[in-house]
C-alpha cells in the first residue's frame, strides 16, 4: 500500500462490566425494563389492596398467567421469524373440544390427549407450509386456519358443547389443572416446563439460531443454508403444541368442552410477546420477556379486578400498554438504525 490505510486500526473499547454484559445480551434490555414495570404494578396493586399478596391470590394469579405464558411462547416463536399466528385461539378451542368429546365418548383421557396434540400439529404443519412453501402472507394463512380450527371445534360435537368429561378423567384434570406439586398448581409447572424446553431450544440450539436468522434477514439465512420452510414450520408447530396444551388445561378446568374456548387468545398471545419485548418485525425478543409480558397481563387483570375496575377499563389499559410496547420497539429500532448510520459514517 502506498498510503497507510490507517483508518482501519482496531478500536480499543473498554471491557464491559458484568452488569453491562447482562444488558447487552439479546433482548435483555427490554426484559429488564418491563420487569421494573411489573414490579411497580405489583407494588401499586399490593398497596391498593393488601389481599393482592395473599397466598391464595398469588397462587390463583400464577395459575391464571400460566396459559398466557404458554400461548405467548408459541406466538413469540412465530413473531421472531417475522410472522404471526392468528389461529392460536381457535386451536385452543379445537383442542378443548376434541379432547373433551373423545373423553365423553369413553376414550382413555391420555389417548385423547395424544390425538388432540396430533390434530393441533396438523394445523401447525398446515400453517407453516402455507406460509413458507405456498408463500401466503402469514396473516392470511393463519386467518384461514383460524376459521378452519374453529369450525372443527364446532363440528366435532355437532355444534354443541360437550357434557362433563366424567370421573374417569379425574387424573387428567388433576394433571392439567387441579393437582399440586411442591405446593404449586400443576398448570404452573406445565407452563414452566414447556418454557424451559422451548427457551433452551430458542437460545441454545441451532434451530433457535435459525429462527432468529429467518426473522432477522431471510436472504442471509437462505444464503447460510438455513432451510426456511422447515424453520418456519417448526415455529408453527411450537405454537400448535402450546395452544393444544392450553386447550387441554381449559378442558381440565371446566370438565367439559366449550366451542368458544380460547376466543381472542391469539391477541393475548401477541400482547404477552410484545409487552415482553418480542418484536413484531422479527428477529428480536427472548422467552424470558414473554413470561414477564404474560405476568404484566395477568397482574393487570387481577389487580384491576381487585381495584374494582370494570372489564372494559381492563381491556383499555391492556390495549394501551400493547400500543406503547410496539411504539417502544419501533423507537428502539429507529435509534439502532440511527446508530448504524452514525457508525458507518465513522472514517
Amino acid at each position: 500500500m502506498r498510503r497507510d490505510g490507517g483508518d482501519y486500526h482496531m478500536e480499543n473499547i473498554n471491557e464491559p462490566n458484568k452488569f453491562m454484559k447482562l444488558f447487552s445480551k439479546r433482548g435483555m434490555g427490554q426484559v429488564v425494563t418491563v420487569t421494573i414495570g411489573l414490579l411497580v404494578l405489583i407494588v401499586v396493586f399490593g398497596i391498593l389492596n393488601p389481599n393482592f399478596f395473599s397466598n391464595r391470590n398469588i397462587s390463583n394469579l400464577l395459575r391464571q398467567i400460566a396459559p398466557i405464558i404458554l400461548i405467548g411462547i408459541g406466538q413469540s416463536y412465530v413473531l421472531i421469524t417475522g410472522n404471526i399466528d392468528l389461529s392460536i385461539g381457535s386451536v385452543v378451542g379445537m383442542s378443548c373440544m376434541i379432547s373433551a368429546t373423545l373423553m365423553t365418548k369413553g376414550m382413555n383421557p391420555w389417548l385423547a390427549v395424544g390425538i388432540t396434540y396430533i390434530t393441533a400439529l396438523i394445523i401447525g404443519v398446515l400453517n407453516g407450509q402455507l406460509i413458507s412453501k405456498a408463500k401466503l402472507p402469514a396473516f392470511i394463512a393463519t386467518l384461514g386456519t383460524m376459521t378452519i380450527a374453529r369450525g372443527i371445534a364446532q363440528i366435532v360435537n355437532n355444534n354443541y358443547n360437550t357434557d362433563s368429561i366424567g370421573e374417569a378423567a379425574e387424573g387428567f384434570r388433576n394433571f392439567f389443572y387441579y393437582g399440586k406439586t411442591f405446593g404449586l398448581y400443576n398448570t404452573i409447572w406445565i407452563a414452566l416446563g414447556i418454557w424451559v424446553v422451548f427457551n433452551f431450544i430458542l437460545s441454545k440450539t441451532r434451530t433457535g439460531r435459525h429462527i432468529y436468522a429467518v426473522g432477522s434477514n431471510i436472504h442471509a439465512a437462505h444464503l447460510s443454508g438455513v432451510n426456511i420452510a422447515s424453520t418456519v414450520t417448526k415455529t408453527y408447530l411450537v405454537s400448535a403444541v402450546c395452544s393444544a396444551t392450553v386447550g387441554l388445561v381449559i378442558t381440565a378446568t371446566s370438565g367439559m368442552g366449550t366451542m368458544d374456548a380460547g376466543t381472542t387468545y391469539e391477541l393475548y398471545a401477541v400482547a404477552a410477546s410484545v409487552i415482553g419485548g418480542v418484536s413484531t418485525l422479527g428477529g428480536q425478543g427472548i422467552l424470558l420477556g414473554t413470561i414477564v409480558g404474560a405476568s404484566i397481563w395477568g397482574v393487570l387483570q387481577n389487580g384491576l379486578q381487585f381495584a374494582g375496575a370494570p372489564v372494559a377499563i381492563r381491556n383499555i389499559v391492556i390495549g394501551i400498554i400493547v400500543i406503547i410496547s410496539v411504539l417502544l420497539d419501533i423507537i428502539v429500532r429507529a435509534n439502532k438504525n440511527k446508530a448504524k448510520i452514525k457508525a458507518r459514517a465513522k472514517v
Partner: protein
Amino acid sequence: MREEILRIENVTREMDGITYLDNINFHIFKGEIMGLMPLNNHGKRQLIELISQNVSIDFGRIFFNENLVNYYEHSSLTNNSVYAIDKETKLIEDLKVIDNINVLNHNFHDFVIKEKALKVKTDELLKQLEIKINTSEYVSKLSLFEKTVIELIKAIINGAKLIILNELASFLSMEELADFQKLILFYKKRSISFLYIANHHEEAFKICDRACLLENGRIVKVIDKKDFSDEILLPYIITFNNSIGLNEAGRSTGIFEFRGFVSENLKNISFSVKRSECITILDINNKGIQDIVEILMEFSQPIQGEIFLDHRKIEPINPGNLLRNKVVFIPENPINNSLFHGMSYLENLTFLMDRKLNKSVINKKIMKSIKEQYRSLAGNHVDASDLAGLNTKSLYDLIYFKIHIFSPKVVFIMQPFADADMYLRGRIIELIHKLKEKGIAIVILAVNISDTLAVSDRLLVMEDGRFLGNYDKKTLEIQKR
C-alpha cells in the same frame, strides 16, 4: 465565459456531531462532465443529497443555474433540477416504460392517457438515441442497463439539468458502461451536466472533463483534463500489489469444477479452481454471472451442468448442500445480504460453526475460545450484542472472519469491491488474501475488473455466456505494458 450549473462555496454540513462535508468548494459548468472520486465514502451520500435538495448547511452557499438556492442562514428544502442515478432504480417497476418516461413527469397534465401517441413519441426518441428497448414493456422486465438508460432519459425529459451518476461501474458491465457513456456524451452536447462518481480514476479519466477527489468530506484535489494521469494521483491513491505471488494456470483440474453448465445465459460453461487459487470471472455484458448466482442459490435450475468438489459430484445444488460440502457464497452488498443485524457479533461470527462441528448446541468453551481468538483481530467488537454500532470496515471484517472460521473449500464472491471506497477495497483485498493463505479456493464474479486483479491468479473473460479467454496474471501484465 462558460455558464455554471452548480457552484458550491465553502459548504460545511454537520449532522449528529459528525462533519460530513468540510468546507467544500467546487463548481460544474453547463455541458460539463465533472468526475468525483471518493477516496472514502465519508460525505458522499450527504453531498449527493445536498446537490439534489436544498437541505440545511452550517456554512457556505450554493448556486444552482446561477441562482443562490441555499446558504447557511436559510435553506428552503426545495429540490434542484438534479437527478441521481445509482443501482437502486427509481422507476416504477410495475408500470410500462412509456408510463415511466411520459406520464410520471412534471410536464404531463393530460387526464386521459393516449398510449399509442405516447409510444410513437417515445419510440422516436429512442430511435434518435439509437437505443433498442421495447417501450411497451414493464420496467420490471428490463435489465439493469436498460433501466439505467430509461432513468436517464426520464430525468432529462423531466427537466433535470444536472445528472449525478453514482458508481455506474459497480452495476454495469464494461460493454454496457461503454454504451451508456455514449449516451452521456450525447446529452453533454445538449448542455446537460453530469457529476460522474467513480471509485476508479481510470474510469473517470476516460469520460470526464475535470475530476476532483473527495476525502473525509473534503475536496482535496481538482484535476483538469490536460493533467489526467496516474502520476498526479500517486500521493492520494492506494495501489494494491499482489504480495502473494502468482499461481500459474495449471493443466490439472482444480478441487472445484463447474462442468458444462447450460442455462438461459450460460452456453456450456466449465471452469475449475485449485486450492489457494483465486480466479475472476469477468462478465463483459453482465449476463452469465447472474445465472451462476441463481444456480448456486437454487433460484433457477440449469438445463445441464454438474459441480464437482474433490472429484465428487455435489447434488442437489442448493445453498444448504453447498455449505455441507464447504462451498460458500458471499453475495453482493454482503453487509445487508449476509449478516444478521439483530444478532450479536459472536452469533454472526459462529453462525456456520454448527455445520462445521455438526452439533446443534455449541459448547460454551468453544464459543469462549473463538471469542478470545477473534478478539485480537476484531477488538472488543466481539462483545457487541448487535451490529448496530459497527462501522463498515468492521462489518466487512466480520463477513470474512465468518468464512475464515468456517474454513470452506471454495468461496464464491459476487462483486466484492462494488460500492467500496478506496480504503475499504484495500481491506477487502487483505481479507481475500487471508482466505487464500488458508488454502481456500476463491471464485470472484464481477462485471468490472476493478481491483480483482490484485487478488486474482487467473482471469476468465465471459461474453454472452461464453468464455472468450483464460489469462493468467503474467499474461495480463504483459498485455497491460
